[in-house]
């Protein structure tokens, strides 16, 4: 898609962005008298009124602890919370709602995998493969596993354009010792979408299961775990316009069934005696303690909201924004964009000659623009490109094309300022 760089302010889009913006009260805020231009949604998205209201309404009219309450408030709150599980199952096209495990965030989902699958199913001598563009949350749990249990950690390299090196990836699997591939579905730094179906085919051909880190991908594209044919998929609520405090791990029923529990406590047991306890069925086996009830209710509202807009429109909007951003930012002298993958999504990381990324972020902030700067929790990836930090603009359903124009103009001013 080719987008004119001098796009008019109210260019018709597939998405009615103006209407969507009405749903996000925070977007009316000003920062030091300047309109808020929020381009840090990949770190955490803003919340639509539907989410805010769902949580408020629960707390005002229908709240109690869930499961085994035996009273109206508890039964109805359980219904509302469990409806979030149905919403996630539908979102991912899971076969079975019991395959949806609620966690605290995707970091927690990945650690659950590293513990229950890594320590409970994988055996010393086996290996886990990640890629060279993972978020720390998909690196450190496997490092801890490696150091604790002698499970090798292999890193599939990426190319200079920021794509997975497929030959190298396949070579890493050749010895048949890889038990699990845990890989990002979309890089939070480069924007690269990994070729999920191919990864699964190759991994399965070599006897490895596949877990995707969908923290970024699920925000912009329809994810169908049955079509992908993957084994596990994880995402985090707060990036999908939902509240903090809730994450998701989806896994095939038979794999989850075979995994030992991770955390112990209330909710996850079937029976407890001092000598011996037995575990509840999945997903409860993995959900110890009072669950994120309000967060589940909020997440369901977020998913309903996203589904009502529809992933076709969302994905097209993302593509249009990123094309626009690449052409506008790419045209500024001294701006270097990190990552040139063919298939890429709504984040742009960039550096500016003679200006440190932190200074860039702060100076954009003075102009009302929120971008992130730093290593984006992906230090090894930064070092792969010889960098310590970049600035990163990231987009959401409420991002307007003219916000990108404003970013480009403001960035040009920063460049002038530092000249």
């Amino acid at each position, binding site marked *: 898609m080719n987008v004119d760089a001098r796009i008019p302010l109210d260019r018709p889009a597939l998405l009615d962005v103006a209407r969507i913006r009405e749903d996000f009260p925070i977007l009316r805020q000003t920062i030091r008298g300047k309109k808020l231009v929020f381009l840090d949604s990949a770190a955490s998205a803003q919340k639509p009124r539907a989410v805010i209201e769902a949580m408020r309404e629960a707390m005002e009219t229908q709240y109690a602890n869930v*499961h*085994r*309450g*035996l009273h*109206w408030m*508890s*039964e109805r709150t*359980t*219904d509302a919370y469990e409806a979030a599980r149905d919403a996630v199952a539908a979102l991912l096209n899971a076969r079975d709602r019991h395959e949806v495990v609620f966690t605290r965030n995707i970091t927690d989902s990945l650690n659950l995998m590293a513990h229950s699958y890594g320590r409970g199913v994988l055996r010393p001598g086996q290996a886990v493969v990640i890629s060279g563009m993972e978020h720390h949350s998909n690196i450190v749990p496997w490092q801890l596993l490696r150091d604790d249990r002698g499970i090798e950690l292999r890193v599939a390299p990426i190319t200079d354009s920021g794509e997975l090196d497929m030959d190298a990836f396949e070579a890493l699997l050749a010895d048949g010792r890889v038990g699990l591939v845990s890989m990002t579905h979309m890089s939070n730094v480069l924007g690269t979408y990994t070729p999920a179906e191919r990864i699964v085919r190759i991994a399965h051909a070599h006897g490895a299961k596949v877990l995707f880190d969908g923290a970024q991908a699920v925000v912009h594209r329809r994810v169908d775990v049955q079509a992908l044919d993957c084994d596990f998929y994880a995402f985090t609520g707060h990036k999908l316009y939902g509240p903090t405090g809730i994450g998701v791990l989806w896994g095939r029923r038979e794999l989850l069934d075979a995994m030992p529990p991770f955390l112990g406590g209330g909710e996850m047991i*079937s*029976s407890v005696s001092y000598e011996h306890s*037995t575990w509840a069925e999945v997903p409860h086996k993995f959900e110890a303690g009072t669950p994120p009830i309000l967060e589940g209710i909020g997440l369901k509202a977020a998913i309903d909201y996203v589904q009502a807009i529809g992933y076709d429109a969302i994905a097209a909007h993302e593509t249009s924004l990123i094309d626009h951003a690449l052409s506008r930012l790419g045209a500024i002298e001294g701006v270097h964009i990190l990552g040139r993958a063919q298939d890429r999504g709504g984040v742009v990381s960039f550096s500016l000659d003679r200006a440190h990324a932190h200074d860039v972020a702060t100076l954009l902030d003075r102009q009302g623009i929120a971008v992130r700067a730093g290593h984006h929790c992906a230090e090894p990836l930064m070092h792969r490109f010889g960098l310590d930090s970049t600035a990163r603009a990231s987009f959401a359903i409420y991002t307007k094309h003219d916000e990108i124009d404003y970013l480009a103009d403001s960035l040009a001013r920063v460049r002038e300022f530092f000249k």
Partner: protein
Amino acid sequence: MTDTFDDLRDLYQEVILDHGRRPRHARRLESFDATAKGDNPMCGDRIEVWVKYAPDGTIADTGFQARGCAISVASADLMAETVIGRSKADTHALFEAFREMARTGKCPHCDAALAEPLERLEPLAGVHEYPSRVKCATLAWHALVAALDGGKEASSE
């Protein structure tokens, strides 16, 4: 008891209280062809079911021993009353229909042939308002079906 208890009766109808208090089939069969246990560790409900078949394969007799709430005991007893004389296939169908009724309060897709026995079980439909208690109503059925299927243990979903 007069209508001072009206507000309590829509779930705990007289028939439930009665079968809960004085179950007719709460006994171990002396001779039986199949048996199974059911267990709901969440509430501590426990049940054991025995089945005796007639020569034609229908259920000639069934009995149970249960520990649990009024709903679970009454449900076990109403079940026994309802399945005696039925074929295995009928009983399976009835189980599915009853399960749906307990979950949703109705059974719109139910076979007309099940209308009569379902009506007898209808007093239990009120549990659908209490999803955590649906298990109390279905535990006996899970155990019965496990016995019919030759299994040994059942736990409600």
